[in-house]
Structure formats: C-alpha cells, structure tokens
C-alpha cells in the first residue's frame, strides 16, 4: 500500500510541476506529461511503468468515448466527403509512402505496413489544443485539419481490429511459449473461448447490437431515474459505470474496448444528457490520459536513444517531411489556399498519441518486434516535441507573408459568431432560444429540470440536462469558446453567482441576464452582466400602451409616450444604480434612493401630463411646430 502511495505521489508531483511549465512555454500539456515521464522514468523503474501503462490505457478508451460523444451521426454524415476524401487520402498516401520506405530498408511487408499505419496518424491532442489556444479552429486550414484528425480517430478503430491479423508467427510462438507457464496462474476471462466460428460471430453482433440498442433505449430511463434523485455523485458513478461496463463487455467477447466505447459515445451523442456525461468523464479521461503520456515518457529508453541518436533524428525528419509533403499535395488538390494551405500542412506533420497506443498494442499482439518498436516510440515522441516549433514557424514566417497580400482584399465581413449558451429554458429562455435559432445562431441550451428538457424534446428543441451553475458543465457546454451566456434561470441568487463566476473566469464571454425586479437588476449589473432586462418591464409597457390606445389616445402618440417613459427610466437608471451601490449592504434602498425614485416618478408624470408645448418640448420635443408668429422672422 505504502508503495502505491509513493508512486502515485511521484507521478502527480511530476505532472504538477511539468505540465504548467510546458503550457507557459507554449508547448502544450501533452509535451509536459511526456517530459514529466522522462524525468521520473529512472525513479519508478520500468516494471512499475508497464503495469501502470495498462491501467492508464483506459484513458484512451475514455477519450474515444468522448470523441464518439462529439460526433452526432448527422454531423458525421454531413462531413462524409471531407472525411473519406481528404482524411482517407491522407491516411492512404502516407501509409503507402512510409510502407514503401520500410520495404526499401528490407523490413517484412507486415512490419512495414504497420509502421506506415502508425505514422499516418497525427496528434489530435496537440493539434486541437494548439488550434484552441491560437484561435485557429474556425479558419479554413483549421477546419480541414480537424476533418483529417477525425478520420484518423475513426481509422484507429478498424486498425485496432485488423492489426492482429498481421502478427508475426515467430513472435507469436515466442509469446505463447512465455505465457504458457503464466497461464496456469490466471486465465483471461472470456465468453467466447472455445466457441465455433459462427457462434463467435453471432455473439459479436449481439454485443455490438446491445451497445447500440441499449445505449439508445435503456440509457435514457436510467439517466432520468438517476438525475431525478438529484445526487450529482451518483450521476458521475453512473457515467463511469456505463463506460467501464462497455469496456468489460467488449473485452469479454474479445473486441477492443476502445471500439465499444466509441460506439456507445456515438449512440449517446444525441442524448440530452450528453454534456453532463462529458463533464463527468472528462476529468477521469484527462487524468488517465495524462498518466498514459507520463508512462510513455517514462518508457523512453535512453540507452537506446543514445545508441541510435542519428537514426532517430533522421527517421523523425523523414517522417515529418513525408507527412508534410502528402498534406501539401492534398491541400493543392482540395483547393485550400494561401496561409490556410500552410497551416494545414504544418499542423498535422507529426505522429500522434494514437501512435503510442498502436505501438504498445502491436508489441502486445506480436506484430512488431520490441526493438523496432522502441526506436519508433522515440520517433513518435520526437516528432511531437517538434510540433510547437512548426506552429511557431507558421506564426512568424508564413503568416506575415500572407497577411500583406490578404489585407489588400476588401475587408472580410464574415465574422465568426461564437455560439450562445442559454442557461435555463423555461418560458423566458425558450423564447430567446427560438429567436436566436430562427436566425441561424448556434445555441447550447441547458436546464436543470429533466421534465423541462423532456418537454422541449417533444417539440423538437434540442436541450441538455445539467446544472448550468456547475463550472465543469459550463466548460463542456463550450463556455470558453462561447460568445455569450444568456442567464434565464429561476434561482435569483444562483443567477448572480453565475454572473460573477463567468465574468471572473471568462471575461470575454458576454452575459445577457434576465432580472426579476429592480433590486435583482442592480445586483446583476453589479456582478458584471453586460445586458439586463427585467422580465416584466417590456410586456407591462406594451400592455400599458394598448390600454392608452383603447382609452382613445392616437396609437402613434401612445407609442411615443412609451418611448419617452423608457428614455426617462434610462436616464435615471445610472444615478439610481450608483446610489444603490454606495449604500450599505443592509439598507440598499436608503432615503436618497427613495428620493431619487420619487423624482423619477414625478418627471414621468410631468412629461406625460404636460399639455404646454414648450414645457413638453424638453422631454417630448419631436415634431414641435414653429411658433404661430414665426413668419415674422422672414420679413427683412
């Protein structure tokens, strides 16, 4: 037990020191974990590292579950051309060229092909993280790079399924010999051992079908049942149970747990519990994936690196050059222009974290000899280390060159509209959502009442269950990239707290809030909300105006009266707010405040009553005719 504590402490300690440092130097968190691993590798020893790595690989399963969650089947279908064309060609061409290179150096075709597949993949973790940090996600280059990364993520699944077919007979024999003794101690649990082929296929189909159908029909009642209990930690437990259960089922029938998790993710992508699931799994995935990268770093064998330094460097540069070349050619074919072409080319020219996964997977399955894998591991790691340099090259050299020519064009009017998060979708939030959606503005709708989410579903409005005041739910709903948060939740205090939190953590996000009354209005304003509207104000004014009309006032005059009242309210609002703010906490509505409020009431009454043209003119002066005798002015 003590040993576990010490190991865990060393791992966490290394991560805590290295990752923030790496981020500060603009290298991204993945490199931070790798470096941390390199540093602690000699301390914890390779045996520990190996057993930990098996455990940490569960982070990859979770990552694929989350990738699946992000992929609504519909969105996937819309992207099919980019995915198959751009992504498929990238994987195909890169694999082909590297395989050919492997054959040239007299490697067996299965080994060469495996290496080709491993290097065809790029690093989703590094690239997407960097795009986010540099605001490149919405550029054309960024979009195309994302499609390629996505096709690679999907391609991993058939690779995991098919690579075992490439196993080398002599390695298998060795492994069998080695495990023969161990097998007596413990036998892998399996449902399918000893089944005939047709029965095995049947069980596989049943298992996959169960994930699909169960994910679609059983998960919803389960989540609703758990959510209605209102216990957050039980919801977290349910999310974990789901992912672990699927992984277990897939292992039992001899399939890749990652594949199962991905499938389950896609099935749940349309669920209203999606964001809640994401925010529950995300921290576990982050930690386990971090741990995985650390174990990779710790697994780097410096003896091998020292012996093969030149080979590793040469191989890394060759791989990056080949990848960049393929990408550049594809960018030409798919008409990606100017700086976007270079962004696309440079951003994806590294090997990725799935390379690590595939490497350890292929060694386990006797596809690659261990000594080659160790060198390849170094190549993958080194190419990831070099990626930040490529981004710096893009920023400093490529971009300035294109900025000049691009600026000479007519200024671009298409500004990207970030999405809007709507917290609370009762009567008020629903109306806002409908209006924004009708105007093609992307919204993410959150509500903490399952019944409300259900009601909306009945009328085809997509919304998500979750408490918007939870920071991690806001995060998975995309607050860091959102342009605006609309707060329309019923809890007055929570609305103020939420405003404070978001304004403090994401100062760029605009907050539009619904207030209940004047006091709430001021508190929201004090908390930093950008625009506040009292929920009854405009409807009350509208009803008042209609009442005036019905009492015989000319409709246009009534409209002007309404405008005047609004303007007067507006002109007093700031001074009322200042008074409110300066007063002490316990007596917000002091004598001064009341006096000013009465003054406002009087001003309104005066403006409305006044029949005298000159007096009225001060507040309601539009279309005042010249005086009766004004023609005298023109007599010279």
């Amino acid at each position, binding site marked *: 037990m003590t040993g576990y504590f010490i190991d865990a402490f060393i791992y966490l300690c290394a991560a805590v020191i290295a990752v923030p440092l790496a981020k500060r130097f603009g290298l991204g968190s993945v490199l931070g974990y790798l470096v941390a691993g390199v540093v602690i590798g000699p301390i914890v020893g390779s045996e520990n590292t190996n057993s930990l790595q098996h455990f940490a690989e569960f982070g990859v399963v979770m990552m694929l579950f989350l990738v699946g969650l992000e992929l609504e089947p519909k969105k996937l279908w819309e992207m099919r051309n980019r995915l198959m064309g751009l992504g498929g060609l990238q994987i195909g061409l890169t694999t082909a060229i590297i395989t050919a290179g492997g054959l040239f150096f007299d490697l067996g075709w299965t080994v060469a092909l495996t290496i080709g597949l491993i290097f065809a993949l790029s690093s989703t973790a590094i690239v997407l993280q960097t795009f986010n940090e540099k605001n490149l996600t919405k550029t054309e280059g960024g979009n195309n790079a994302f499609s390629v990364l996505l096709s690679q993520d999907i391609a991993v699944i058939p690779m995991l399924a098919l690579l075992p077919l490439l196993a080398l007979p002599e390695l298998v024999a060795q492994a069998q010999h080695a495990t023969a003794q161990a097998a007596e101690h413990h036998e892998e649990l399996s449902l399918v051992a000893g089944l005939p082929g047709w029965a095995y296929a049947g069980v596989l189909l049943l298992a996959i079908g169960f994930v699909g159908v169960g994910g679609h029909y059983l998960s919803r009642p389960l989540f609703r049942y758990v959510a209605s209990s209102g216990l957050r930690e039980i919801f977290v437990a349910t999310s974990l149970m789901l992912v672990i259960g699927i992984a277990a089922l897939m292992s039992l029938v001899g399939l890749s747990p990652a594949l199962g998790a991905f499938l389950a993710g896609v099935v749940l992508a349309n669920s209203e519990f999606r964001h809640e699931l994401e925010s529950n799994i995300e921290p576990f995935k982050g930690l386990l994936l971090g741990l995985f990268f650390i174990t990779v770093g710790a697994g780097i064998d410096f003896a091998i690196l020292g012996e093969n330094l030149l080979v590793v460097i040469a191989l890394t540069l060759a791989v990056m050059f080949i990848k960049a070349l393929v990408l550049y050619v594809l960018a030409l074919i798919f008409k990606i222009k100017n700086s976007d072409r270079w962004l696309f080319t440079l951003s994806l020219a590294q090997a990725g974290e799935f390379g690590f996964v595939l490497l350890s997977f292929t060694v386990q399955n006797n596809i690659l000899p261990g000594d080659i894998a160790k060198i390849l591991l170094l190549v993958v790691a080194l190419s990831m280390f070099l990626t930040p340099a490529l981004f710096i090259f893009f920023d400093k050299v490529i971009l300035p060159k294109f900025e000049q020519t691009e600026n000479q064009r*007519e200024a671009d009017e298409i500004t990207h509209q970030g999405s809007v998060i709507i917290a609370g979708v009762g009567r008020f939030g629903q109306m806002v959502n409908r209006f924004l959606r009708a105007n093609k503005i992307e919204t993410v709708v959150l509500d903490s009442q399952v019944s409300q989410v259900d009601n909306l579903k009945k009328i085809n409005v997509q919304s998500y269950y979750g408490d918007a005041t939870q920071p991690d739910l806001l995060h998975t709903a995309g607050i860091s990239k959102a342009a605006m948060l609309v707060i329309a939740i019923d809890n007055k205090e929570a609305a103020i707290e939420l405003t404070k939190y978001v304004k403090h953590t994401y100062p760029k996000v605009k907050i539009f809030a619904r207030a209940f009354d004047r006091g709430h209005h001021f508190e929201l304003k004090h908390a930093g909300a950008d625009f506040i509207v009292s929920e009854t104000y405009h409807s009350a004014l509208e009803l008042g105006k209609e009442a005036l009309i019905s009492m015989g006032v000319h409709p246009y005059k009534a409209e002007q009266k309404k405008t005047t009242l609004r303007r007067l309210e507006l002109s007093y609002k700031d001074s009322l707010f200042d008074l409110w703010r300066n007063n002490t906490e316990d007596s917000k509505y002091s004598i001064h405040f009341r006096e000013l409020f009465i003054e406002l009431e009087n001003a309104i009454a005066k403006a409305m009553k006044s029949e005298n043209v000159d007096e009225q003119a001060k507040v309601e002066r539009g*279309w005042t005719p010249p005086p009766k005798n004004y023609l005298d*002015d023109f007599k010279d």
Partner: protein
Amino acid sequence: MSVVRNKILILFAHPSLERSEVNKPLFNASLRHQDVTAIDLYREYPTFDIDIEVEQQRLLDHDVIIFMFPLFWYSTPAILKQWQDLVLEYGFAYGANGTALTDKVFFCVTTAGGAEAAYQQDGYNHFTLRELLHPIEQTANLTHMKYLPPFALFSSRNAAEQGRITEHVDQFISLLTACAEQRLDIQHAATLPLLNHALTSAHTPLTGE
C-alpha cells in the same frame, strides 16, 4: 497650408446594409478617415427614436455636414427625413435665433441606379440629380448652410461588376481630405451640376498652398 482642419460629419442612411455594394465600402472608407465622424443612423436609431440633443451637438461640433445614402424615390431613405424633421428645430436651425448651422458646408453623397443619361431633361427621369434634390438644397439655404451639389455614382447596380467602386471611393476620400484641409474652392464647386469633378476642374488648386 491651413493649420486648422475642418471637421466632417457624415450621416449615413442605408436600411439594408447587407445588400449594399457601393455605400458600404464608401462608408467603411470614411470611417477610417482621420477628420471624419461617420454615423450609421439605422444602427444608432433602429426604432427611429432619434436623440435630438445628441444630433444637434454633433452638428455644432463639425464644419462640414454630409448626407450619405442610396437614392430612394428621388430622395433620402426614411430615417434621414425623420432626422431632418426632428433635429432641424425652430430656434436651432432656422427662425429668429436659429443660426447654429450658419456657414457650415453641406452636400449629399448618393448612389443612383439609373444611368447618368437618364438624369437629364430628355432622359426618362426628366430632371438632373441636382434638380431632384432641390428640397434638400433649399433646406440647406434656409438653415444658412453653404450647399454644394451631390457627389454621385450613377448606374450603381452594375458598378461592382464593372470595377468602378474602388476609383469612386478613392475619389471621395480625396474630396474629404480636400474639405478637411480647406482646399476645396467652395464658390466654384457650388456652381457645378455634380461634385465629382470639383477637384480636377480648372478653378481648384491641386496642391493646397
């Protein structure tokens, strides 16, 4: 070279800016001019609720006043008429003590769908552009401003296709600079049918010494 530069106010009115091909680049270029305050009226007053106080102060703060708009039914879009009805008050712009605008320079910048040939006595519009804008000209006279003829682009619906916009915008920007540096010969310009060639015609010194 005059040390004091004229301050220019552009009151811009276009109710469907997203469809604009000429006025938008014209307005955007003006926004970047150092001597210009350019106001998008439809943006500032989407409900036509024009703030008279603010608008009168803007007039007082500037020396050259410009209406910029696409020609709608031989006149301005509605909000510019609303602006006139509300802002040019008795006692401010006209009448016994209404001298706030005295000696300010005023002109229109407009775009017309019809060809220049149509805006002639024998064309299908029967009047020149300057004649059609007589109500505005007289408004300027009554408010004691110095009226100049309109700066106009004709056949504006195919200006983009024919690549005439850049030149037009450049010409306008030089006109703005000339106004700011007081290089424009106001008396001569006032007699022209259009302001477009005021800078290149003989009476105006090209380098403002």
